[in-house]
């Protein structure tokens, strides 16, 4: 059970959060102009890396804010958390 440092609330137990999958996947601004393959790329294709992964998390039972997290899936080490509008901190 992780201890997650919510960028708005501080350290909280993982049970307050939910994971929203891979981060930095931007919804296309003009979906109608995409081919089926391009749209499928956005819609379905997600990475599942053993190692450092960028993820979206939501403080569901707290401030309800979404934020980003850099987590190593092989050892669950959380390298950084940052707000939605922020760029990932350079490793």
């Amino acid at each position, binding site marked *: *059970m*992780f*201890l997650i440092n919510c960028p708005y609330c501080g350290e909280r*137990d*993982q049970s307050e959060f939910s994971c*929203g999958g891979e981060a930095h996947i*931007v*919804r296309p601004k*003009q*979906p*109608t102009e*995409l081919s*089926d393959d391009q*749209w*499928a790329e956005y*819609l379905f294709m997600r990475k599942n890396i053993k190692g450092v992964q960028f993820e*979206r998390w*939501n403080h*569901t039972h707290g401030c*309800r*804010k*979404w934020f980003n997290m850099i987590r190593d899936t092989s*050892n*669950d080490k959380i390298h950084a958390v940052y707000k*939605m*509008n922020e760029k990932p901190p350079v490793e």
Partner: protein
Amino acid sequence: MTKYRVNKTKQVDQTKTVSFDFDGKSYYGFEGDTLASALLSNGVHLVGRSFKYHRPRGIMSCGSEEPNAICQINEDTDLTEPNVRATEIELYEGLKASSQNCWPSVNFDIGGINNFISPFIPAGFYYKTFMWPKSFWKKIYEPLIRWSAGLGKSPTKPDPELYDHKHVHCDVLIIGGGISGIIASKIAAKNNLKTILIEDKNILGGSTIFQKNENYKINDKYSGGWIDEEIAELKKLDNLTIKTRTSLAAYHSYNYLLAKENISDHLPLDKRNGGIRQRLWKIRADKVIVATGAIERPLVFNNNDRPGIMLSNSVKKYLDFYGVTCGFNNLIFTNNDSAYETAVSLKEKGISVEMIDIRKKSNSKIVKNAEQLGVKIYWNSTVVNTFGLRKINSVEIMNLSEDGSNVVGDKSRINCDCLAISGGWTPMVHMHTQSGGKLDFREIDQTFIPNEIDKNHINVGSCNGDFELEEIINNTNKKVKNFLKVSETEFDNISVLNSKELNKRNIWLLPNFISEGKCKSFIDFQNDSTAKDIKLALREGFKSIEHVKRYTTTGMATDQGKLSNMHALGIIADTAGVKMGTLGTTTFRPPFTPLTFGSIVGRSVGNFFDIIRKTSIHEWHIQNKAKFENVGQWKRPWYYPINDEGLHDAVQRESKAARDSAGILDASTLGKIDIQGTDASEFLNRVYTNAWSKLEIGKCRYGLMLNEDGMVYDDGVTTRLGENHYLMTTTTGGAANVLSKLEDYLQTEWPELDVYLTSVTDHYSTASICGPNSKKILKKIFPDKDFNDDAFPHMSYQNGKIDETNCRIMRISFTGELSYEINIESKYGKSLWEKCIEAGKEFKITPYGTETMHLLRAEKGFIIVGQDTDGTMTPIDLQMDWIVSKKKYDFIGKRSLYRSDTIREDRKQLVGLLTDDPNEILEEGAQIVSDMSKKPVEMIGHVTSSYFSPNLNKSIALAVVKSGKKMNGQKLIVPMENKNINVTVSDSVFLDKENKRINA
């Protein structure tokens, strides 16, 4: 005092007798005993039968590693519990325990026949045997396996006891109250750190507490005396919480740990007084110090499982801690120095003991001490066989060859009544690995020890591979200082006298003159896995330790391989000719020792299992005898039976009343989201399939929400309350998810939109009144209001007042009838409802529940999201093309509606079904086929909603069928178990296709 109670000790109060029953026979023990020590004090060794061969088995250890002495306690009471280790349960007055896994009794067990046919029950027996003939499976194999499988009996009634959860935070958590845990706790607490020490036994001190001899001294005191003083000082420290009878169950990442505290398990049943039985501690620690100690290894030789064969250190503990000798004619079989402590203890009390040592010689002080006391030692020898049916009575020994791979010379027989065995020590690295830590293999004594890269915890003492007293103290002190950043401690200059040496001759499987196939050299005592089984598995091609484990079941018993894993690994390594360190270990998974279900669920039982949500009108529903159904967490009235009406009759009556006169539904559970902000209209445009910008203030509109994949997600009516203010309704079950989804898009994709969302589901209660007389009823409740169709048309809303209370009146319809909804602040919900009932009396207003609502909707072909849809239905599949805007540039899911897959014409599509026999009601979920002749029969769809409509006087159903859109009028078949039902595809709107009733 029984004759086996030879020693007076501080821990057992021999003035306080405690009576207990074992297998129906009464015995006495003393306060401070465990069930195991009390049984041994009465000379009882045989306590169970093994799982597979039903061989007699005795108490082997004194802790959580015990594989044999597992009991059913307090049988035939609500508090009965299976698989309790006799070595862990504290004795209390009136305790009733019995052996498991034997029938009719532990002394005469019919399953013992398995022992004689054991050559025919090799590893993988079940996989290989119960394969054929197929017809045998159901009637013979399965009942047989079920009858003989399983350990103990589960209680049959609900658990009457209370369990608790507690969340705690601390600076330092120390696991284990032995000598290293005590040193660590003292350093932590004295340096101003909030410290918790947990210990699974009822007292602190580990194995040092009963160490009182000249061979082990700390600061010139017996180590046992020294630790007594340390414990006394420890108890005075303010910063320290000491929790005994508390065992660590799990060590999760980020130093989150679970520990189970036994609060009343050691009390007589009549003294428990309904208090809390166990408490699960949920601990978040800044730093963790693991001091869980080590477990003694057995030795693997022929017939090493008879009652009376015990771990050497346990024999010592029974003697020095409980005052009980396990025999008067002891033999100790060892490969290392530590067993000599047991010999010295026995000899000092005048009890006969001889040593069999597989080593050629040892010159350590403790061995010399034993020799001085006159202990006979058979060097370079091994046990090749043991004898005695229900208890060991003798052994045969032989000399080992130079390299230890064989036996040489003649056999000689030695009589004994107890054989203590010692194969060295295995550090308890379970906690370290559970936390994600890795292990290193240490060749010198063939142990896996923690590899500490992670700096959130350290391992100290023998769980770190430090087995000798001076290294335990000095290394613990050094490591804890470093870990907690402490510069000096009282343990910096301590004088330690130690007499053992780390000097071991490791032979995983001891050689024998008997062929390997005929030896019963047990590795996993509880599951009856032998060295032979492991070798067979390797010959059959299993290479991975995880596979061998599962194939032979080694390490899969309730002790989770605490005694067996290392030997299994060692034998695999030797047989395969690889280094043990390269094999790795099996995975150590929580819980370390079994947890009760009670402690896992805590107070979340019965009504507290999940949140129960009730509307403010709930009491009225109960008074009016509603039957309830669960919708998400909500309790919703399902139907309101009159007298002894069943579901069908009640629903027929309610449905007819709603269309003929008036019905009323508690719609408070529907999700309600208040949407405000200058971009609210734009926001709705993006989340619903239809257009919203032109919706006038005071008007309502039905909306369909999709997922980005184009599939229907939710639906509901949204009302425009003001220029920048909307009230959205969602399905009852979908409310929370819809809000989350909308928040997600607002925060992540469209942060530029000025929109604020607030869940107001619980703020308002809703009464929905439908039927041709509903307008008249509304008129009675709001006499000043003009309800003419021009003034108050369908799909519009107006504010109203009941007495002085504001409410919102929406003219919207779930059912296709003329219909109104009144929203009022929840605290007035019940009085609103009662007012509606009162006003509707003259029209025989009928309260109806969810079942009738579903029926009424099905008559109109209105979908229910989650019943008629299942996450694979687009609006086009539902024949709801009319609600999908062609003009809007984008909305959630739009692009997916013309993916090559979603435009396929043979997708399952929503249609109506009419049975050829109008009285035949289809089963929801039933499969639909068109051609029965072609095998395998293709299933082209399934029934989603099905009712008998009292308003149409025939059976109706909604279904999803491949290419259903084009099948109107086509005959299909719904095959059931004993008949085929003929149906005809129809339009999905069965009643009032022209929508006249809405303005009736």
